């Protein structure tokens, strides 16, 4: 698509979307949001650029491959299920602890949250990979 408005807008909106997706991810445990939604949103932000310019441009400019996102995500997911085995002797049992943060009660962090981050990255990777696959020019001829 060749729209200058869309292209310029994509520059800013994209990062807004990314920031928004991270906020959604972070607040997910207590308010609507979470890894899946956040991941979809972040994936969409990349898709936005792909649409404003071309998917090929996005592909060349992306320094991290979507496969790496998926790998990172799955790795985080599989890491997060293990602490429960060793600490509470139950697979996938959530382990929580509080990270002290000045002037507040501190930030609660736990393995389910790590799990959610893993979902986040996996979904980004999957979305972008779908996008790339479907926009691949060569395969349709």
């Amino acid at each position: 698509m060749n729209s200058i408005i869309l292209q310029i807008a994509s520059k800013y909106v994209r990062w807004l979307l990314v920031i928004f997706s991270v906020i959604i991810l972070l607040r997910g445990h207590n308010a609507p949001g979470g890894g899946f939604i956040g991941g979809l949103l972040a994936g969409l932000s990349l898709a936005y650029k792909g649409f404003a310019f071309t998917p090929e441009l996005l592909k060349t400019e992306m320094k991290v491959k979507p496969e790496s996102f998926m790998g990172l995500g799955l790795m985080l997911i599989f890491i997060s299920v293990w602490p429960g085995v060793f600490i509470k002797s139950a697979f996938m049992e959530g382990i929580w602890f509080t990270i002290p943060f000045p002037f507040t009660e501190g930030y609660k962090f736990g393995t389910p949250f790590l799990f959610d981050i893993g979902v986040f990255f996996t979904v980004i990777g999957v979305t972008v990979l779908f996008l790339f696959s479907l926009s691949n020019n060569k395969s349709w001829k």
Partner: protein
Amino acid sequence: MLPMLNLVILYFLFALSIFILPKAIKSQKGILIAFLQMAAFVWFVFKVPLVSANNSELLFLKWIPELGLNFEFLLDGLSLAFALLVTGVGVLVFLYAHSYMKSYDNTAKFFFFLLLFSGAMLGLVLSANLIQLFIFWELTTVLSFFLISFFNEKELARKAAFQSLVITFLGGLSLLAGIIVIGSAVDSYSINDWVAGADKIKSSSSYVPGLILILIGVFTKSAQFPFHFWLPGAMQAPAPVSAYLHSATMVKAGVFLLARLSPALGGTDEWTFIVPLFGVITMLVGSYFAITQTDLKAILAYTTINALGVLVLLLGIDTNLSIKAAVLFLFIHAFYKASLFMIAGFIEKKTGTREINELGGLIKSFPITSAIALLALLSMAGLPPMLGFLGKELIYEAKVQSPGFGSMIFIFGFISNVLMFAVSMKVLFKVFLGKAKKTYTVSRFKNTFFVIGPAILVLISLVIGIAPNLFGKWIIEPATNVIYASPVNVELALWHGFNQVLLLSIATVVLGSMLSYILIKYNRVEVLWQKFNTTVFPVNLPELFTKTIESFVAFSVSKTKILQHGYHRYYILSIIVFTAVLLWVQLFVTKGWQFEIPFTFKPFYISGLVFIIMLATLFSVITRSRIAAILSMGVTGYGMALIFLYYSAVDLAITQILSETLIVVMFMLILQRLPTFTKLSSKATKIRDLIVSIIFGTAMTLVTLKAINVNLSSPISEFFMQNSFQKAFGENVVNVILVDFRALDTLGEATVLVIAAVGVSVLLFSKKSKS
């Protein structure tokens, strides 16, 4: 007693660390591993006094006790004998491999597999739980596959590896079934329980099927007839692998299992009939085909088959003499066969050939190696003063005194020994003595590691042959006691006195010498013999195997083609029709049409929304423009999201909106590449589709309506609501369900998602151009 487990784990850890060794010591990894093996070997040597007092050590760790699965490591006479073999031969093999593999790439991979194999084999012989044993058993099978196919650029190597994998895997499956069948009789998979409940097992109806299933596993692993043919094929492996896996350790795993199970399953009529029968056939097949081979390694492979047959036969006869002979022969065979394989590899390296007709007079070029080979061959032929002589005498004694059809066994044993003697002499005179066809100049120092392994093995064999008593008391007797399950007195001596057995030995030597003389003197005899074999035994087992596999694959392809026709529309049609049928059956059974519709007024905008959704859906069906269809489906999706919002399911609504957006985006990407819109379906297919849709849609509607009426006593959602914050520290219940309560589901879903994405990407990125 944790060291046993740690030792096995150490092997696996060490194997993994091979890839990250610093560069400086990377080229020395063979020696490094040899040190590890040495440490393990010494550890086991220190256990000898404990075991020779007929004690044993058991390590018991709970794994899944509900299923009878536990980690049980047992160190007794039998496992110690095998552990000494695995680690002791391991030291020498790794030293040898250090030199042998120098000229190849990917040695890290090779040592990784070989060391993993060592660990797996050690785990196998120490296992006292049969399921655990099975796991190690299969590990050795897989690793053998990788090691045989190490030179994977050769087609023969790949074929041989596949063949051995399939055969031993089939045997492994059968073994697992056998373990479960017999295990159900005593309700345990622990070998100690099996031995304790031996009478119960033998009298139960599952004994015979279980025994046969286990024996199939044993026979495939230990290359017994009719599964023996994978072993000569496996000679495609590098020489250290042949020396280690296919002579000293892995093929003995079957023999080990047979010995382990002997007190639990042995001694019955079935046992003393089936086991010796296959042992005798294998013994004869091995020695008979060994004599006409011309490839040095093939000769060794067939003589290994012979030896395995002898071991199985001896364990099957099941008298104290035969078991004593079996344990002794196990060591004898490992000593001479491992050294002969190493020497064969050495010869191949230095001369470039393994054909014995092209070799000759190697003693002039390699005097030390030839001397070692001479001693090893003497042991194989069963001549004094080597340990082999002692073994042969004992075996004769066992066969002569065996109950049942003993005399038959004894005649076959005599034939097999004559053949073995002839083979040994043939190799000795054709390869090492006689006229030199070429002289090879080799610098002496480079060969140290090549020679050190066989030299040590042969020396041990010589020393024990001359003074066998200590070895018999410390190693053979405890192992025999375990297998025979009652004390056996082992006293070995080289000189037995002048008796029937010695006469047999002399007759063997005389006949064998005559046979080998004919073979060496007249090459034509051998050629004629080979021709005779191919006409009399027309079935080539490896070829038969390949054909069977090929026809099996062809059969599955033809069946798969019917089910996997490749038409997407029919896949979807069959999925929907099948689901609809299932739903309707359930609806009829539960009388799904009987429900009350709770009628409540909703605000007008909800009703209006529903109306819009219906309109959009209808429009997407009848429109002739793709973009319109996609957009109107988008309207349906967003409409659903709004309804979710109305019922304050915020998470669901957001997800719905986002995925709907993504779907529209992706459709747009595809859209520009599709051909122009044409109507392809005929009227008949349209009517069919309409009928299917109505049936399926009605079923779904009924199910949904019925779901409102079903009142479960306590919906699980209440549990989630209550515990979400208290136990999982999250106020957003949906998210807590996803990442905590039902995290296993999410884990599976994430994995499936990734696999699907990779699949799509592979399908669409594939370079294959469609014509």
